[in-house]
C-alpha cells in the first residue's frame, strides 16, 4: 500500500504530525479543521468494479461523491508527478502541508469541487469548475493545466494541492486524501484543508433537495464505495474559460 504517510499541520509553534488512520475525530489547528477522517470507501466504476489507478486517463476530469452523498469531488491523473510537501494556508491563516499525488507516477490527486470563493461546484446540470488541460488557455490566469472556477475566475494549481494562483478564492480547494493499494485500487479516506461543507449544505438547500431529494439525504456520509464517472457523464454542460 502506498500512501502519503503523514500530514503535517503547521500551527503557530512547531509541527503536528499525524497518521490519518489513527485519527477518528477532527484534528484542529487553532479553531480550524485541517484534517478530518471520513468513511474509507473504494472508488468504483458504474458497474461497481474497482477503479484502477493505472487505467485513469491523464487530464480527464473524473467525479465521485465524497465524503458526503451531496458533495462532488474531482479525481484527476495529472500529466506529471506533482510537487511534494507543499505548504498551504487556509483563509484564516492556518498552515498545513499537502504531501503530493499518489500512484506509481505520483500524479493522481483528488479535490472537493466546492470553490473556496463562493462555493460554485459541480452540479448535474452544469459545471463552472473543472480542471483544464495543459495548453488549454484560460481567462483566469496565464498558466495552463490548472483548476478553474469560471464564475469569478479563480485558478488553482492542481499540481500543488490546489494552491490559489489567481482570482478571488481565499484558500485552496479541500483535498480528498486517497490511498493507492498494492492491487492498484484507489480508496478515499479523509479530507485535508479547510472545507466548505457546512456552508455548502446551508446555501444550497433547494438545489440539494432537487438533486438528492432533500438536504438530509445529501448530508449522508458515503459508505463502502463511491462511484466514479467522467465530468461529461456527471453533468449536462461543462463551461470553461
Amino acid at each position, binding site marked *: 500500500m502506498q500512501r502519503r504517510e503523514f500530514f503535517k499541520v503547521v500551527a503557530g509553534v512547531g509541527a503536528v504530525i499525524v497518521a490519518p488512520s489513527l485519527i477518528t475525530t477532527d484534528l484542529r489547528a487553532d479553531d480550524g479543521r485541517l484534517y478530518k477522517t471520513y468513511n474509507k470507501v473504494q472508488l468504483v466504476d458504474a458497474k461497481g468494479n474497482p477503479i484502477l489507478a493505472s487505467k485513469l486517463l491523464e487530464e480527464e476530469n473524473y467525479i465521485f461523491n465524497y465524503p458526503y452523498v451531496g458533495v462532488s469531488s474531482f479525481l484527476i491523473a495529472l500529466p506529471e508527478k506533482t510537487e511534494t510537501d507543499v505548504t498551504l494556508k487556509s483563509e484564516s491563516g492556518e498552515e498545513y502541508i499537502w504531501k503530493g499525488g499518489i500512484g506509481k507516477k505520483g500524479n493522481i490527486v483528488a479535490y472537493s469541487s466546492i470553490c473556496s*470563493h*463562493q*462555493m*460554485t461546484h459541480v452540479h448535474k446540470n*452544469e459545471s*463552472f469548475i473543472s480542471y483544464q488541460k495543459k495548453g488549454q488557455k484560460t*481567462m*483566469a490566469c496565464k498558466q495552463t493545466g490548472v483548476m478553474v472556477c*469560471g*464564475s*469569478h*475566475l479563480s485558478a488553482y494549481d492542481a499540481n500543488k494541492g490546489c494552491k490559489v494562483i*489567481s*482570482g*478571488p478564492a481565499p484558500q485552496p480547494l479541500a483535498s480528498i486524501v486517497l490511498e493507492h493499494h498494492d492491487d492498484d485500487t484507489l480508496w478515499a479516506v479523509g479530507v485535508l484543508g479547510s472545507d466548505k461543507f457546512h*456552508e455548502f449544505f*446551508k*446555501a444550497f438547500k433547494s438545489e440539494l433537495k432537487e438533486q438528492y431529494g432533500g438536504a438530509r439525504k445529501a448530508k449522508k456520509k458515503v459508505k463502502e464505495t463511491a462511484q466514479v464517472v467522467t465530468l461529461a457523464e456527471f453533468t449536462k*454542460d461543462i*463551461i*470553461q*474559460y
Partner: protein
Amino acid sequence: MNRRDILKFGAISAAAATVTLTGCTTSPKPDDSVKPAVGMGSKAPLPAAKGPRVVIVGGGWSGLSVAKYTKKFAPNADVVLVEQRTQFHSCPISNLYLVGAVDLEFITHDYLQAARENKYTYFNASAIGIDKAQKIVKTTNGDIDYDYLVLAPGIDYDYSPWNVDLATEQRLRTEYPAGFMSPSEHMTIKSKLEDFEGGNFIITVPGGNYRCLPAPYERACLIADYFKKNEIEGKVLILDANPDITIKSEGFHSAYDEMYKDYVEYVPNAAIMSVDLENKKVIAGELEDEFEFSDAAFYPHVRGGKLLEVCGVAKDNAFNKMEGNIDPFTYEVIGEKNIFVAGDARPMGYSKSGNTSNSEGHYLGKLLAERITKNKDIPWKSPLTVCYSAVSAMPNHAISVRAEYEFKGKTLAGFTNVELSQEWRGKIGENNGKALMEWAKGMYRDMFNA
C-alpha cells in the same frame, strides 16, 4: 416567511419608517417627553459597544462586503451597517430585470439576513453627517459613536454639464431616470418598455468614470432584443459622450451591427447639450445635432454620494466631482485617521461595478480587522473586476472581461492582467450568459449568505 412575503413586508416597513420619520405616531396621546432624534444629540438605540466600533455607512456592494469581512476577521469588533433602505436591490442584473429575463425577487435581498448571518448590526436610518472631533455619525435615528468609520454612499447624479434648470432636472430624475441608483428607476424603465409602442428610445452614456462602464451598452442590446422579439417598431439611440464604446467595444459593436442592425443606432461624441422635454428633443454633440425621442433613460454624469460633501471628505478629481479624498492604497481619508471611503464613491479610476466593490470590500474589511487586532495595515491588493454583459436575453448570450489594476507610485496606471471574451455567438456566448447568472448568485451568497 418566504422572500415574496419579505418583499411585501418591506413595503410595509418602509411605510412605517416614513411614519416614524415624519414624527407622527398612532398613539392617541403623544408622549411629549420624547425628543426628536435628528440633530439633538440623542443617542442611537444601540447597545453599548463591547469592542471597537466600526460604523459603515451605505449598504451597497461595498458596505455589505466591508461589514462582513471586518466582522469575520475581527470578531470582537462591533460592526454597525447604517443603511436607509429596508431592502437591498442589485444594480447588477437589473438590465435583465428591465426586459423580464429575471423577476424583481432575483435582485432583491434581505439586509436582516445579511446581518444575522454575518453577525453585525443593520441599523436602518439615513446618515446625515459626522462629527469628526467627537467621532459621531449623526443619523435620522440618533447619534452613533465610532472608532472606525467607512463611508460607502455610492454615487449621485450630476446634471450640471447638461445646463438644465432645476425643474427640468427634477423631471429628468422622475420621468426619464437613468436607472443606476434606485430600484424605482428600474421599475420606471421597465414600465416604459412594457408600454412602448414605437419610435426612438434614447439611452445616454456619460463621460467620466460612470457607474458600470458597459451597462448602458448592455441595456441598449437588451432593449433592442426586446423590441425585436416583441415586433416593436422601435430604435434604440445610444448618444455616447465618449468617442467610442468604453469597454468590450468589439463585442458590443458586433452585436449592434449583426444582431440589431435595424434596432440600434450608435452615436459617439454625442454629449448632451440641451434637453427639450416638452417637444421631446435633445441637442447633442459639438455639431449640435437634434434627436427626437418617444421615450428615454437619460444617464447624466455621476459624482460621489452627497454625504461625502456634507462630511467634508470629498474632492473633485479628473473623472468626477466630489468623490472621496483618500489614500488610494488604504482608502483612508487624507488627514482623517480611521475614516475611509470605499465603493463607487472612491476617486480611483477603477470600474464602478459590483465585483470591484465586493473584492475591494474584502480587502478593506481585512485591513480594518488588522488595524483593530494588530494596529497595522496589510499590503495593498488590487480589486478585481469580473464583468459579464448580456447582449441578448432568454437565452442569455454574454461577453465578459476580467481585469485588475496597477499603480506607478500613487498614480493609477490602468488595467492589468486583462482578459476579454467578446464572442457572443454560439456556445461561447451562451456559456458567458450562464456564467453571468452564476456570477450573480455567487455574489449574493457572499453578501447575504443567501
